[in-house]
């Protein structure tokens, strides 16, 4: 079975099966879009939590940490009920579209990116706090400065978010509906093939997905290594 699956995976990749390419591209497109949106929202959020003091801050941090363990199915259900034609946002007609899948993944990975950003920036904050205070840097400037200086460390943070987004199936299955040529992505295709008993094909799709994840990780790590050599980190 395992050897078959590796063979199948290789054949799928080499033959550039058009269906596979379509599914793969949509997977990557959805997850990268979710990552970009979540990153823009969550990285400043994590930074603000790390450098500012306000009532309820600890509570919010605890909440975000807990949300990292949010089951994708619950997120899917929540987004489904929001976007359902009988739900509050039904008028947008977004259910069973890639956009719905992006929304679900954004909700899923915001806590991860925000929490991990918080940890990175908190450490940096100890080093920079007094300097920024003496230079009278505005909070907005400080947020940008922190994010910019921590950018290479934050790659890992984004990577964690991307990993969660590209690999989850529970949420996108519910809000996307696994519709052929419209909302079918790698993970839902794997679930479908498994339910057809096509275990070898399902596993080979998993291997393809793993390859993509490895590729993304390799790129990020080489950027980090390059940065390290140049003394940016």
């Amino acid at each position, binding site marked *: 079975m395992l050897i078959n699956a590796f063979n199948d995976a290789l054949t799928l990749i080499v033959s550039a099966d058009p269906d596979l390419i379509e599914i793969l591209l949509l997977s990557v*497109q959805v997850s990268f879009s979710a990552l970009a949106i979540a990153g*823009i929202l969550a990285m400043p959020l994590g930074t603000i939590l790390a450098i500012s003091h306000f009532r309820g801050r600890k509570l919010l941090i605890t909440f975000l940490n807990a949300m990292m363990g949010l089951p994708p199915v619950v997120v899917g259900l929540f987004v489904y009920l929001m976007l*359902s034609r009988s739900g509050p946002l039904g008028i947008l007609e977004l259910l069973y579209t*890639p956009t719905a899948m992006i929304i679900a993944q954004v909700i899923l990975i915001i806590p991860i990116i925000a929490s991990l950003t918080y940890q990175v920036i908190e450490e940096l904050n100890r080093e920079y706090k007094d300097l920024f205070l003496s230079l009278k840097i505005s909070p907005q400037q400080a947020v940008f400065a922190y994010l910019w200086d921590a950018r290479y460390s934050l790659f890992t943070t984004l990577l964690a978010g991307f990993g969660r987004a590209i690999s989850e199936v529970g949420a996108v299955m519910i809000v996307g*509906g696994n*519709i052929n040529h*419209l909302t079918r992505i790698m993970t839902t295709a794997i679930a479908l093939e498994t339910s057809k008993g*096509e*275990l070898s094909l399902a596993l080979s799709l998993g291997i393809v997905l793993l390859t993509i994840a490895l590729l993304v990780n390799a790129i990020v790590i080489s950027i980090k290594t390059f940065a390290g050599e140049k003394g940016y980190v």
Partner: protein
Amino acid sequence: MVIIRIAKKITISLGAVISFNFCYAESIILQSTTSTKNSGFYDYVLPMIKEDTGITVNVVAVGTGQAIKNAQRCDGDVLLVHSKAAEEKFVSDGYGVKRFDLMFNDFVIVGPSDDPANISGSTDVSEALNSIASQQTPFASRGDNSGTHKAERELWKISGIDTSKGTKMWYLETGSGMGATLNIAVGKAAYVLSDRATWIKFANKQDFKIHVQGDKRLFNQYGITLINPIKCPNVKSKAGQKFVRWLLSDKGQSSIESYTVGGNQLFFPNAQ
């Protein structure tokens, strides 16, 4: 600068994704049972429908129970499932316009080839279920309120066995779809009730085979219903109606008849 560049990229990729939603001029959402999808039936019939009517049919395949619930929330245009009583209730509650018989096949009991409950060749489903229950051989139930699950519950009932009483170690409720339940049954050497279409197309059979078939109580009727535009104003009733009419037409019915997998006809048209 970097931020502007990133923002630009996001807008572009978002735009590309959103444009997906609008590039299908006439498309409908079909809330469907899983067997019609997993058996490859839609891959066969939907291109013909596209060619004849121009309608793209987006299939959301879930269990019958969930499909009906989704349709009640107006998240679809047409419902194609297999639980006549539940479908009729759906229509009488005002959620559907009218229900039509579309096609049928039958359920079969499959199990390991060594047949521990000794039911192979039986055409009496009650006898077979009683034998499974008295031997306490494992039986995998869908347990998900799907059409097949409802049919299975009914079969236990008419066989006079209450599987819910006490803890029955041999009665395994998987809470999953047909394919997942078949995978579990194969892994646990358990008997399982499946629709014939899913079973024929199922690729992980290992040593499993059909033991019980041919009892008329194993009849499995599929129905099709247009979701009611009065309850759900967003329903694309025109396109939905075209789709329903096509399947009920002579051409639709004969295309159902001509769909085979490995020489086996999977669905038998019986629209009135």
